[in-house]
C-alpha cells in the first residue's frame, strides 16, 4: 500500500507581513494568517475540521482554545510538529476520511529567540542573585545557543570533508539574491551581497559570521490542506500532496553519535526516501524546492541527505550555483531563513513558497514551468526532526 497520491491538496496559503517587530500577539498573527489562507482558498472558518499547530508547546488546551476561536464546533483531527510532516500527515488523514480541511497555523510576536532577546531581558530584570536552573543536560549551561551549536556542526563538516568556508558562504549570497526578487522579504531591500560581505560581517561564533545566521523576527503563516472534493470548488488550482514522510531522531544538542555525518543518513534521509517512494517521483523530477536553511551547513547537509548529491559534496553543489534561480534545483526562492524571514518556527513558509511557485504566483522570482516541488522542514539539524512533502500541480 502506497501513499494516497492526489487525494488531498494545499488549497490556501498565507504569510502575514514579516518584520523585526510586529504589533500584536502570537494569537492575533496566527489568526490573521488563517483568515488570509481561508480567503486564498475561498473557504470559511467553519469549513476547518482539523488543526495542526506549529506552536512549540502545542498543548491540548491551546488546541482546544483554537477550536473555540474557529467557531466552536468539534474538530476531528489534531497534530503538531513541523510543516512538511504536518502536510503529509494531514493528507493521509484526509484520505482515511478522518478530516476534510486541515489548518496548519503559526504566529509569533515579541518572542525573539536569539541572544539579543536574552540580553534585553537580562538588562530589564533585577540583578540576578541566583543562577537559573535548566534541564540537567541543557547546552545553555555551557554557553551554547543556536548559532554556536551550528558553528560546531559547521566546523566538523569543514574538517571532515575539507570543505572551504567560502563554499558554504555562497549560500547566504544566493538567499539574498532571491530575497531581492521578493518584495515581502525582510532583507531584499538591502540589496545583493558577496562572499566577501559574508566574511566581513561580524564574527558570531567561528566560523559563522552574522550573514551566515538566520533572521530573528515576528510573523505568521497558515496553510490549508483539503480533500479533493473540497479542492475542486476552491478559488485556485489545487497543489496536490503526492507524497511525504517524517523522521525523528536525536541531536537535541545534548547527545551525539559518531559518525555524526555518515553515509547511512539520518532523519532527513529516512523522511526523503519514504517521500520520494510514496510520490513515485525521482530527484530529477523536482523543479523547485523549499528547504529549512537556518545556516549554510544546514543547506549543504539537506541536499546531501535528500539525495540531490553525495554526502560531503553539498558545499560544492552550493558553490556551483545549482540552488539559485536558473540553476538545476532552485531553492528557497523567497530568500529563506537568512534573508526572507525566520519568525520563530518558520518551516511552514517553505511550503507557502513552493505552493506559490507551483501556482505560478512568484513574478520576478518565478521558476518557469514548475510542476513538481519538494519541501523539507527540519529542526535539530538533519539528524533530528525532519518532514518532507512532495507537491505537484495538474
Amino acid at each position, binding site marked *: 500500500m502506497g501513499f494516497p497520491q492526489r487525494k488531498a491538496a494545499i488549497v490556501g496559503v498565507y504569510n502575514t507581513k514579516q518584520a523585526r517587530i510586529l504589533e500584536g500577539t502570537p494569537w492575533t498573527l496566527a489568526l490573521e494568517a488563517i483568515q488570509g489562507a481561508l480567503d486564498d482558498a475561498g473557504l470559511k472558518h467553519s469549513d476547518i475540521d482539523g488543526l495542526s499547530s506549529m506552536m512549540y508547546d502545542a498543548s491540548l488546551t491551546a488546541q482546544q482554545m483554537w477550536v473555540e476561536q474557529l467557531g466552536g464546533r468539534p474538530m476531528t483531527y489534531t497534530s503538531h510538529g513541523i510543516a512538511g510532516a504536518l502536510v503529509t500527515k494531514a493528507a493521509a488523514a484526509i484520505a482515511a476520511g478522518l478530516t476534510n480541511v486541515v489548518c496548519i497555523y503559526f504566529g509569533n510576536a515579541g518572542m525573539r529567540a536569539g*541572544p539579543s532577546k536574552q540580553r534585553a531581558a537580562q538588562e530589564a530584570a533585577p540583578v*540576578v542573585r541566583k543562577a*537559573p536552573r535548566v*534541564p540537567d*543536560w541543557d547546552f545553555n549551561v*555551557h554557553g551554547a545557543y543556536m548559532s554556536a551549536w551550528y558553528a560546531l556542526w559547521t566546523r566538523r563538516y569543514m574538517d571532515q570533508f575539507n570543505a572551504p568556508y567560502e563554499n558554504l558562504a555562497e549560500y547566504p549570497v544566493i538567499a539574498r539574491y532571491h530575497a531581492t526578487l521578493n518584495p515581502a522579504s525582510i532583507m531584499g531591500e538591502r540589496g545583493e551581497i558577496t562572499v566577501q560581505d559574508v566574511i566581513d560581517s561580524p564574527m*558570531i561564533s567561528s*566560523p559563522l559570521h552574522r550573514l551566515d545566521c538566520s533572521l530573528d523576527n515576528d510573523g505568521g503563516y497558515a496553510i490549508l490542506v483539503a480533500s479533493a472534493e473540497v479542492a475542486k470548488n476552491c478559488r485556485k488550482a489545487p497543489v496536490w500532496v503526492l507524497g511525504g514522510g517524517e523522521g525523528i531522531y536525536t541531536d537535541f544538542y545534548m*547527545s*551525539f553519535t559518531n559518525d555524526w555525518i555518515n553515509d547511512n543518513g539520518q532523519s532527513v534521509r529516512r523522511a526523503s526516501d519514504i517521500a520520494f517512494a510514496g510520490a513515485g517521483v525521482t530527484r530529477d523530477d523536482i523543479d523547485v524546492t523549499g528547504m529549512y536553511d537556518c545556516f549554510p551547513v544546514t543547506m549543504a547537509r539537506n541536499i546531501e541527505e535528500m539525495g540531490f548529491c553525495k554526502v560531503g559534496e553539498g558545499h560544492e553543489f552550493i558553490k556551483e550555483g545549482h540552488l539559485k534561480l536558473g540553476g538545476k534545483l532552485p531553492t528557497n526562492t523567497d530568500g529563506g531563513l537568512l534573508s526572507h524571514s525566520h519568525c520563530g518556527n518558520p518551516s511552514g513558509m517553505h511550503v507557502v513558497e513552493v505552493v506559490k511557485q507551483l501556482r505560478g504566483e512568484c513574478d520576478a522570482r518565478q521558476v518557469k514551468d514548475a510542476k513538481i516541488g519538494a519541501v523539507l522542514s527540519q529542526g535539530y539539524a538533519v539528524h533530528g526532526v525532519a518532514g518532507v512533502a512532495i507537491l505537484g500541480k495538474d
Partner: protein
Amino acid sequence: MTHQPYNKPLPQRLPENEEFWAGLEAREFRVPKCDDCGYWHWIPYPACRNFLSTNQTWTTTSGKGKVFSYTVVHRGPGGFRDDVPYVLAMVEFPEGPRNPIVIGTMVDVDPDAVHTGMPVKVVYEDIEGENVTIWHFAPDD
C-alpha cells in the same frame, strides 16, 4: 573586588543521576556502562540504547578525550556575554564503541590553538553557594 554571584544557567540535580553529580564533586566523570554489552552511554538514560538492558552501572571514564569540533564564541548569551571570546567544544571520549561525545567550554587555552583532534581532559568547577559542580575541558599536555 566585589563578589559576583554565579548568574549563568546551572543544571538541575535530579536524584536519578545523583551518581553523576556526586562523581563530578569527586573529580570523576561517570557515565552509565551496560553490564550486558559493555557500551558506555552519554547522555544517561535508564536503559542501554543497544539492547534496552537496564543492567547499567555508573562507571568512571578516563576523563580524557579529543576535540571532535569546536567554536570560538564571540557573542554569548545571558551571563556568558562578558566571557567572550570563549571556546565551546564537543569532545569525543575514548570509551567505545559508542563513544560519548560531550559538550563543554574549554578553559586555560588560547582560542587560536584549539583544533579538531586536540587532546583534552575534563576539569571541574564547584559553584559557590550552589549544590552542583560543572565540568569543562582543558588541554591535556
